């Protein structure tokens, strides 16, 4: 008697699990696109202040603002947007498994990535730069010889330093927050990654006035909108980005999200013209 009851409970639990799994799958597969009543799932970073940042359920940052604008142009209201966390290492997988419809997450357009995913944009051209204490006299990567530099484990920025500036003492941390904390303590002389990410970090309330972005970029990162391979949305997204730049919303979003960081974007490369869709 007892065994049958356990078995029945197990079957019920299993059924519940299977059903809930189906439920998740359904809402995912019914993604049609522009139709009203549907939602659009957008991958963003949750941990990058100024770009994509989770403030307890509401999201802020430049990537988020561009995403909302583009989604609006594609016919989605803000309520129809579902933001999904897209950490760097997962971005390709999220797209190829159709777990998100598009990604705005400091996603640089590169040839290797183009083999697995499609890109619209770019909507911003960032460059690798340095964040230093306000009183520092470091003006570029050449001044880093023998200094302690911090970046994130496995990031493109960390690799570039290892390849091109072997004299630098590189410390790799799980996140930029740890790097900035260590720089606040004085053990680290500079933090490196894309300039706009650094500006977002410097603009945080806790760091206001302590750090400055050097403003001497030494790479070119074209932030694109990641799309599943073969997506038909690219042209529409490019049109939306162009419109956002033309009507001033783009400029406004940058200013708003880097306020207090003493940051100006590279005006030679920005605002960018979206590349033709392949």
């Amino acid at each position, binding site marked *: 008697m007892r065994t049958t009851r356990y078995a029945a409970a197990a079957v019920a639990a299993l059924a519940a699990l299977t059903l809930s799994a189906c439920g998740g799958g359904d809402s995912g597969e019914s993604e049609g696109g522009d139709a009203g009543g549907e939602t659009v799932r957008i991958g963003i970073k949750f941990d990058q202040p100024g770009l994509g940042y989770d403030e307890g359920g509401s999201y802020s940052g430049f990537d988020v603002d561009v995403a909302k604008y583009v989604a609006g142009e594609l016919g989605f209201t803000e309520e129809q947007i579902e933001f999904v966390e897209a950490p760097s*290492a997962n971005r390709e997988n999220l797209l190829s498994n159709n777990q998100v419809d598009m990604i705005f997450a400091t996603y640089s357009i590169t040839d290797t990535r183009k083999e697995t995913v499609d890109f619209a944009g770019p909507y911003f051209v960032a460059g690798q730069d340095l964040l230093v204490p306000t009183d520092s006299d470091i003006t570029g990567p050449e001044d880093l010889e023998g200094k302690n530099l911090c970046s994130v484990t496995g990031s493109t920025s960390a690799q570039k330093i290892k390849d091109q500036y072997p004299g630098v003492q590189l410390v790799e941390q799980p996140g930029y927050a*740890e790097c900035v904390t260590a720089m606040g303590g004085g053990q680290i002389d500079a933090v490196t990654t894309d300039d706009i990410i650094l500006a977002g970090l410097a603009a945080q309330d806790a760091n206001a006035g302590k750090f400055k972005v050097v403003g001497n970029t030494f790479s070119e990162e074209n932030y694109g909108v990641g799309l599943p391979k073969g997506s038909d949305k690219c042209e529409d997204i490019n049109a939306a980005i162009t419109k956002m730049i033309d009507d001033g919303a783009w400029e406004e979003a940058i200013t708003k999200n880097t306020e207090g960081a003493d940051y100006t974007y590279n005006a030679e490369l920005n605002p960018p013209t979206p590349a033709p869709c392949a």
Partner: protein
Amino acid sequence: MENYLSLFETYNVPAAFWVNIQLSFWAAIWALAIGTVLALFRISPIPSLQLFGAAYVNVFRNTPLTIILAFGFLGLFSVMQISLASDLNASLFRIAIVGLSLYHAAFVCEAIRSGVNTVPLGQAEAARAIGLSFLPAARLIILPQAFRGAIAPLGNVLIALIKNSTVAAAGSVATESSGLMKTMIEFRSDLVIPIFLTFALGFVILVIPIGLLTTWASRKLAVAR
């Protein structure tokens, strides 16, 4: 396949595992030393030492290792400015070893204490009866038997330590294998699964001989009672 093999030209996978082996080696030695002292505390007749041993074990065993190692970098290194070597990365490497040792010492202590429990009470009574005080009795009679009974649990602690050495990435030893895996995935996200399997296999190769060896040794050296 060619794609996959080209990974090994770009990234030095054995070197990353070598960092984990070094971390584990030094941490194992320190953890064994600290853990043995703690075990002596816990079985000693002095209440304050017993209390200290119990407090240490409970604090370190119940604190996540990630937090201990992140504190090593953020607290000890960044804020308190403690350096254990003049070279930055050597200093961080040693701080990671300190964190790993302190954490695993709690588990070593408990493994040895379980070994002590295999020693019949009569052994301790006999030792005291022939006039040995606590330390000589522990050193000559109890611990030698306890270690032979504790080989299997100590082996488990060592296996856990080797796998946990990947957490040192949180303490900024990014040259170890999980750090390299992150780098490889960042640049070759088309090969995520083969990359993961490579590192999983690497750890299986490292850990299985230890399991076999300690099982064999624990049978061979167990005290027949």
